[in-house]
Structures are given as C-alpha cells and as structure tokens.
C-alpha cells in the first residue's frame, strides 16, 4: 500500500500564544513546533499498515523551509520519505489545493490526515481534498483495517460509533483511537541518525489559491475574577446582575 500522511507543523500545546504587534500573525519567537498530535496518530497507523502489509509511508507538509525539522522528525519516527510543498499555508483551501495535485500524480492508495490541525483548528483540509479529488472520505476515524482494497473504518458520531466501508483510494481524517497514545512512537537514536539520509524532496507550489486573508488576531478576554455573594443576600446578587453584569 502506498500511503501518504499529511503533517501539519504546529506550536507545542504548552506554548504561550502571542501575536505580532500588527496583530496579523502568530509571534513564533520562543515557540517550539511539533508534529500536529492528530497527525502523529495518523503516522503511527500508517507505519502499522506498512509493517503488516508492506508498502511505503510518505509524509508531506505544505510549508516553508522552517517546517523541515518537523518532517525530519516524522522520518526519524519511521516514514520512508518526505515531501515539502514550498508554499505558505495561508488557509485550509490553500493547503488542500497544494495537496491534490501531488496526491493525483503520485497515485497514493491511502491518504491519512489528522482530524484537525491544532494551530488554527480549521478542520477543513481533509474534506476539501476528498471533495476536490472526488474520493471517499471518512472523518473522525477511530479505527480502520484494509482488506482487498476495501477499508473498514470506525468513525465517531454523536453519542456513538459508526462502521463504514469504502474502497481505496480514499482520504481518512484520523484521531486518537486510530492508535492509542501509548502506541505513539518516540524516535529512537538510530532513527534520528538515519533521518538525515532519507529523502526530503521540496516541490514548488503549484497553486496560488488564496480564498481568505487574516485581518486581525486577538486573544479572548481574560476571565474575570469571581465574586462570591452570601447565599442569604439575594438582594446583593440581583444588584450585581443588574448593575454590573447588566444581565438582567
């Protein structure tokens, strides 16, 4: 099976988010970037497929040169080769537009993405790619097996789970359940050393689709201090709700 895993390069979850002074982009100083956690589940599942059934695992990122360490980490974890599509991922549609021509020309059997990129949380790319290619798509996938070119996938739905079948090639947007946290692999030292000998191909951007533009970012207002009102002082409560919170 020829598998592609799409990797988004995101700030570590413990990062303190700040914006540049013009408010138009994320201030990346001091921020550590990692493989998008959802994509790590995807990558691990892809490696299991490869180890059980043979085939290859390629990782791809749409981004500039600064994302290469993230791709090399994916190589250290076990991917065979990496591709960077040299474009600024300005929005989900831009990313999807870049990915489709690669996927179509390379004829992957299976493309596994994460359900969501934890930087901008768009949850746009997988569905868009599937729609643009007109391929089957399973979102929020928590388990999958492939037999004879047909995938049986379990996906999370409101209040339960649904089992669906689709034939390859297809797009899957995965999450925890595809593999568990304990299955995620820490790259071993030898893996890290061989990562530098594995191919990392940079291909030029092929589309200049820009559908949206960021005008301004702002942080949510901080939480207000909590005011305690004595349980028998209803009047004070009403007073606060009316005059201060202006809720009633």
């Amino acid at each position, binding site marked *: 099976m020829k598998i592609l895993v799409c990797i988004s390069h995101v700030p570590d979850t413990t990062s303190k988010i700040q914006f540049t002074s013009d408010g138009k982009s994320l201030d990346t100083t001091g921020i550590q970037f990692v493989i998008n956690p959802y994509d790590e589940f995807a990558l691990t599942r892809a490696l299991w497929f490869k180890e059980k059934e043979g085939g290859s695992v390629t990782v791809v990122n749409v981004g500039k040169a600064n994302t290469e360490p993230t791709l090399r980490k994916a190589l250290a974890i076990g991917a065979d080769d990496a591709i960077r599509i040299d474009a600024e991922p300005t929005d989900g549609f831009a990313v999807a537009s870049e990915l489709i021509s690669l996927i179509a020309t390379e004829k992957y059997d299976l493309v596994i993405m994460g359900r969501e990129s934890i930087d901008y949380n768009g949850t746009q790319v997988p569905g868009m790619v599937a729609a643009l290619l007109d391929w089957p798509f399973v979102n929020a996938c928590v388990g999958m097996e492939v037999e004879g070119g047909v995938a049986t996938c379990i996906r999370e739905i409101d209040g339960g789970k649904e089992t669906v079948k689709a034939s390859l090639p297809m797009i899957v947007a995965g999450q925890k359940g595809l593999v568990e946290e304990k299955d995620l692999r820490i790259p071993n030292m030898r893996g890290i*050393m061989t990562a530098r000998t594995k191919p990392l191909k940079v291909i030029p951007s092929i589309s200049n689709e820009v559908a949206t533009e960021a005008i301004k970012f702002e942080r949510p207002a901080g939480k207000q201090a909590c005011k305690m009102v004595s349980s028998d002082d209803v009047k004070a409560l009403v007073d606060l709700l009316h005059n201060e919170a202006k809720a009633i």
Partner: protein
Amino acid sequence: MNQESNVKGGEFIIKETQANQVFIPEEFSEEQTMMAQATTEFVDREVWPNKHRFEKKDYAFTLSLLKQTGELGLLGIYVPEQYGGLGMGFNTSMLVCDRISGATGSLSTAYGAHTGIGILPILLYGNEEQKLKYLPKLASGEWIGAYCLTEPGAGSDANSGKTKAVPSSDGKSFSITGQKMWISNAGYADLFIVFARIEEDKNITGFIVEKGTAGISMGEEEDKMGIKASSTRQVFFNDVVVPAENLLGERNGGFKIAMNALNVGRIKLAAACLDANRRIITESVNYANNRHQFNQPIAQFGAIKQKLARMAMKHWISETATYRAGQDIENQIASFEAQGLSPQQAKLKGVEEYAIECAILKVHASEAASYIADEGVQIFGGMGYSADAKMESAYRDVRIARIYEGTNEINRMLTVGMMLKKAMKGELNLIGPAMSVGKELMEIPSFDLPDADTLFAEEKDSLKNLKKAFLMVAGKAVEKFGMHVEEEQEILMAAADMLMEIYHLESGILRAEKIMAMGKDASLQTDMLRLFWLEAVEKIASAGREAIYSFAEGDEQTVMLMGLKRFTKIRHNINVKDVRRRVADKLIAENKYCF
C-alpha cells in the same frame, strides 16, 4: 560547532578565551536537539508520571526503564558503531545524560553507573576481543554493568583496596577475593568491572567479571536517604575465578582506569544535575503561580522572585560551563585523532586533558543542584516537606551528587592539585603569570578604565582581575609551602572555590556574548550572568581573605589583602533587586524554566 579550542585543560586561569572559541547550548544541531527531545519525551511519558514508584524501592521498574533506554539507543550513544553503539560525539552523550537524568536520581544513577563507569573502562581500556564481546551487549542494554571500586575500608582512598587477585600457577586465570561496597546497579548487573590487587603491586588492576561466575554473592539492598530505586549493594567475591583474558588494560594499571573513568563520570554527573534543575524550577514557578496567600500568587512576592531568579541563574551557569567543557573535550578528541592517535586513545587523552574542568564542574553542578532543590522545597512551603509533592524526593536524591564520583572535598583538592602538578611538569605556565601578579602588587594600581564600548568590558576586566587574585593566593601559598601545600587543605579548598567561580563566570560571559553575536536577544541571560558575577566576586573575595589570613602575616598580609581588594573591585553597582525581578518575571510569565 567545530571551533578549534586552543585553550587547553586548566589554561583558562592564565589565558583569555574568546566567545568564538567556546560552544554554547544554543549551538546544538537539529539532530542533537531531536535526540534531546526524544529523550525528554521518554522521560515525560515513562518516568516522570511514575516518580512515586522509585520512592517505593521498585528496583525492577528502574531495570525495566534501563532496558527501554537501551531500545531507544540511549545506552550506546557514545559507543562506536562497530561495537553496536551509535558513535555519537562526547557532547551529544552529555546532552542525553542531561535529559535522561531529570526526573529521578534513581534512574540517573542507574544510567550513569551503566553508561559511565560501567561501559567506559571497557571502551577506553578494553582490547579488541573484550570490546567485541561485551560492548554490544552493554550498548543495547541486554546486559547491565556495574563498577566495583569502593570497599568498606577504601572509599576516597580508592587505591588502598584489599581485594586480591591471585594468579593461577599456569597464569591462565586469577582468583578474586574481597568485599566491595556501595555498588550501584549491583542487584541487576550482568557484568562487573572489579578492581583488585595482584600480589604486592603498588596499584590495583581492573578485571571484567561476569555475573554467573561462581563465588559472587550480594549483600542486602542498602536503605538509603534518596535515589531509593537505584540498586546499591555490597558485592562479595570469594575465590571468583576469572580468565586471564578478562584482565582490563595492564596489570597494576587499574588505578589509572578508575581515575579516567571517574573523569568522565564527573562531567557526566554535572550534566545529570541539569534536567533535574530545570524540572525543579518549572515545578516551583508553576506552584508559585498557583499558590495564593494574602490574596495573591506567592510568585508575586519579592522573596519568592529572588529565589526563582537565583535558581535559574545557578542552573544557567552550570549548564553553560558543562557544555563548554564537553565540547572542548570533543574537539580535543577529534584533534588527537587527527594527530594519529587511535580513537580509543584519543577518547582517553581528550578527557584526561580536561580533568581539572571535570572536577570543577562536578563540584559546582552538584552544589548548584543542591541549592536549587533546597529552594524548591522552600517555595512549596509545607507541601515541600510532604512526600506527596515532587520536591521532597528531589531534595533527598540530589544529596548523593556531592558524595559519589569522588566527594566534593576530594574533587576540590584535585582541581588545585592537578593544576599545580601541570605547572610543575611544565604543561601549564603558572609561574610567569603568578610572578607578574606579584610585581603588579608592588606597583601603583592602574587607573585605566575598561573600554566602555566593548561588550561586557567591565565583566571581562573583572574576570582578568579575579584570575590574578587566584594566581596571587595560589602562587604565594606554593612559594610558602612548596609541595607541602597539599597538607594545607583549608587553603586548597579556598583556592578551589576561587577557581570554580572563575571558570563559571568566564563561561557565562562568553555564552551571553555569543548569543548576541548570533543576533539574538540576550538581555535576560546578561542579567543572570551579572547576578552570578556579583556573587562570584563576593565568594572569591571571601575565599581569598580566608586563605591569606591563614598563611600570610604582617606586611605581606597587608599587601596581599590590598591586592585582593583591588582585584575584587566592581566599578558600577548594579540594582540586583531589579535584575532578579526581571529574570523571575520572565519565568513567571512563561510558567516554566525558559532560558
């Protein structure tokens, strides 16, 4: 990264080093960083959440973690590829040792005993057969190693051991009999490096002994203050027959092996303190941010900020000096190899060259870590004293660092002793500089001000003077006592303190300078460096006075004290309170150690 260091071991005291001659942690490559991060990921996932298990003396858990580190490749990081390792450089092995050691002293000790003093004697002194036979098993973690030097009657005086190795009449084997004590990893070791004396040899000899050999038995696990899940036992050897081919290095050469393994052990121990520091600082800031008293987070109190800033400063300085020396060693090894030495010889001589720095780092890092753990407990208040919080075990664990790999007293004396020996052998020109300091004392002090336009002009000028203070005190002491100065331990201790501060201060200045040269902001690093500078100057002044009082009298004393005053003068006072607050505020904002 491969800057050629032309400053040899111990030479920092007489030479000026430039920023482009030192390595700083900001220069670790992507690959090294990835290795460090993978190691941290392992610790965060497998070790840190299970910290309580170590306190319950779960030795099996420590062993299982060692095996896992083997699978990740962390045990063989420094072992050459032809012996099953990864063949990474010295400083990379330091980096991994740093990151693996942060969560608990139990794993830190087990890892250190295995990769440091366990593997190194074979790596550095083993013959080809021994290396091929044992290193792959040790590098993968299939076998665990232990190092048996200490005996009930031979601790600091390691060469005085009573364990005997009696050669068989056909010369094909040795029979080892004796008692070893405080042996880390003993409970689960598969291989023992054992030091024993053959006949009436002057020195001990090293042997490789496999676990299954008849006649080996163990004492109970020691009931220790800390590092509770690192196995520590007595090991008894009763007529243990070892084939002659398991003799390590040369007969009568064991003391040298023991000392060279310890050189590496010492600098590695400095590295092993670092991630514990980071974790303690992070836990402390986090606690201080969340704990409210008097209606505000305790992190907002100046008394707490001052602690946080000093903790960060001490760690930063320790880290700086550790990786500086680590890279100096790596470069020295490369340069010896380029000169035609075998890789094995180069590794050996490379570390030996910087033995003084290794001892300095061990003492300074273990004391900084003790301070940091102690203040960590303090910031946690009552919770710091509770075994439910992570500080209590950290506080107990760190205590051993001042005792093993040579006690801090032994290491202090070694630093100065080794320096004097180098001078006697003509490898280090201390006499010339010491004489010119002597002359300078008799002259009218120079009123030249440091060039205010150069970066850190004042700090560098002060550094130069601090070196003079050391040369003055050590020079006069040697003049007075000759080689008998070794009996004047109090003076040696004071001189060692001066040396340590100087090496660390220089490292700090050069790091801040180099960060700036990289075009990065180093304002808070500069703050930490200045804090350290002020404290170093105070320490050097007080150590210097103590030494001078104890051997100089009358006019000589007066002249020396005036000299010391001149050499420890700081021209511009700094508002330390503000400086500390800036450093602390950054930690508080980031809610973690962040430099």
